[in-house]
């Protein structure tokens, strides 16, 4: 995955709570066997009507949010299905950063593993960003190293992140390679529990 540290981008506000992964990527697009190419289907049923025409009133379709790379949303973002197609679609569409008060557990893990920084701010801070990002061209600067989010008008917020995930994101590490350095421990466990080796 791509490392991420300092990032500046246009913010798109999606002011809904409990946005589930069925909305992020509807089931009819889960049949592909690749990881790429899901961006065109992100929030499909909100972005397009039954005939495939853009719904002009949907926020992501408004010209000022074209090219937005930071998505801000309400609490419990990414609930429901474990489909990793959700972060694949968000990333492929162009979102590197998500900001919300809370995330569903599986979605959070899936995001981090794809190099998306899903960061948690308080409800109040999210509300401020929601409001300010109504303005055209509103950008945020995110710094993972110092765990901060800033805008150009004095807004500053700090976020917590698990040190393990922070390190993975900063370095863009492949988790399997990291785990394979634990081979001795895995082998010891298998010998203890299964009485034999598997590698």
């Amino acid at each position, binding site marked *: 995955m791509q490392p991420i540290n300092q990032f500046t981008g246009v913010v798109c506000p999606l*002011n*809904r*709570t*409990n946005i*589930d992964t*069925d*909305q992020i990527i*509807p*089931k*009819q697009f*889960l*049949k*592909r*066997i*690749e*990881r790429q190419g899901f961006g065109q289907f992100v929030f499909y*049923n909100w972005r397009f009507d*039954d005939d495939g025409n853009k719904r002009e009133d949907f926020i992501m379709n408004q010209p000022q949010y074209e090219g937005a790379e930071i998505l801000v949303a*309400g*609490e*419990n973002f990414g*609930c*429901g*299905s*474990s*489909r*990793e197609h959700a*972060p694949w679609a968000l990333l492929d569409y162009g979102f590197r950063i998500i900001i919300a008060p*809370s995330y*569903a*557990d*599986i979605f959070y*893990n*899936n995001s981090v*593993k*794809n190099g998306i920084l899903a960061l948690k701010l308080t409800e109040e801070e999210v509300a401020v960003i929601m409001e300010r990002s109504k303005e055209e061209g509103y950008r945020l600067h995110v710094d993972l190293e110092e765990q901060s989010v800033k805008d150009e008008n004095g807004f500053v917020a700090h976020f917590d992140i*698990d*040190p*393990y995930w922070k390190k993975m994101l900063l370095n863009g590490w492949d*988790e*399997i390679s990291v*785990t*394979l350095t*634990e081979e001795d*421990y*895995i082998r010891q*466990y*298998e010998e203890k*529990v299964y009485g034999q080796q*598997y*590698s």
Partner: protein
Amino acid sequence: MTKKTVIEKIWENHVVNRAEGKPDLLYIDLHLVHEVTSPQAFEGLRISERRVRRPDLTYATMDHNVPTIDRHIINDQVSKKQIETLEQNCREFGIELADIDHPDQGIVHVIGPQLGLTQPGKTIVCGDSHTSTHGAFGALAFGIGTSEVEHVLATQTIWQQRPKTLQIKVNGKLGFGVQSKDIILAIIAKFGVNAGSGYVMEYTGEAIRSLTMEQRMTICNMSIEAGARAGLVSPDETTVEYLRGRRYAPQGEEFEAAAAKWLALATDEGAEYDKTLEIDATEIEPQMTWGTNPSMGSGISGTVPSPDQFEREADKESVRLALDYMGLEAGTKLTDIPVDFVFIGSCTNSRLSDLRAAAEVAKGRKVKDNVTAIVVPGSQTVKQQAEAEGIDKVFMEAGFEWRDSGCSMCLAMNDDIVPAGKRCASTSNRNFEGRQGNGARTHLVSPTMAAAAAVTGHFTDVRQLSSVN
């Protein structure tokens, strides 16, 4: 000795390595695989030239895409490709597969328990959020994403932060005509869709203890709808007796030895949880949802709420959007809402006891003319068992369609789709927008409530139909 919960005991038994500043590395005892969330994982293995570390702990089936009529005719070429890809991957990596022709084929969360693969004390993962189902056995079972599927295939381990523990205590006895589905829907309606976020839940209390294994599976299945990756029930004699004689369970003397170990996993008397929530079973009536997430529901005697009844702005807005999507007016009695479709099936409610209970209601009655009702057994084995009891005939005589096993109308990745604007009484687990088809309106209910809706043409308190237990 410190008193521990079943969750802590299983966790401790599986720690491969624990180090400062990292999550725990846990060993996985059973990895279930299906066609939708695995192709990219196998592809990843191929690219990195990695193999599957423990094919003997991996078991695959196909369920999401499979047709439930004319199983061999998959019109959707993309679906077909996905199914063929799983066959090819299982061959290449040496994984046992219950394919579309296999007598053991079925919904992954139905066949794991049925085959005895699911056992107390195991760590179980699958690229599917309803993996929490297996928690009914006192297993630590949770859904994972495709990157994690690849990780487990390659290493048989997973990095996990130690979860907090949440006890959901269901006090008292269930009332007449109330199902285990009603317990979990009531829990989610009361505590919300993220009550369990960051926790593993353990269901305890008198009402839970008295449930059968299949009823416990229904409850654990929907733990994820309360935000918890995993939800479980401490193993007891009910668990042991369910597993006795199952194909992949230990046999003979080994079984007795395993059973003793399983029972010892139960939460110790006096063990502490990070949090406890309680609900009174005696107050639970048959439930149904009216909105677009599983917490938007109530007892059947209720009415559709108004957004104004909610305090937070965000909730008012969610309810307003939900009512708009569902085509419902605030104040409507739930029993006045008509149905167009009825779906009895899914990993929540497609086991033999679910079908028996629904058939009891359907028996001697007729599905209303304008209603399409389908029954989709959770596995080919459940289908056979039901047919041996004549349950298929009861349904068909009442006007229900009797299908082959699969995920079917729960998520409409196959041909079973609810058309836009149509309303479905569904025994599945998610009422999200578009879940059963674009524009489809889902109301979650128990199997008996679904059958009652089918034969009356609207949502009905099943307790008011005669001859129902």
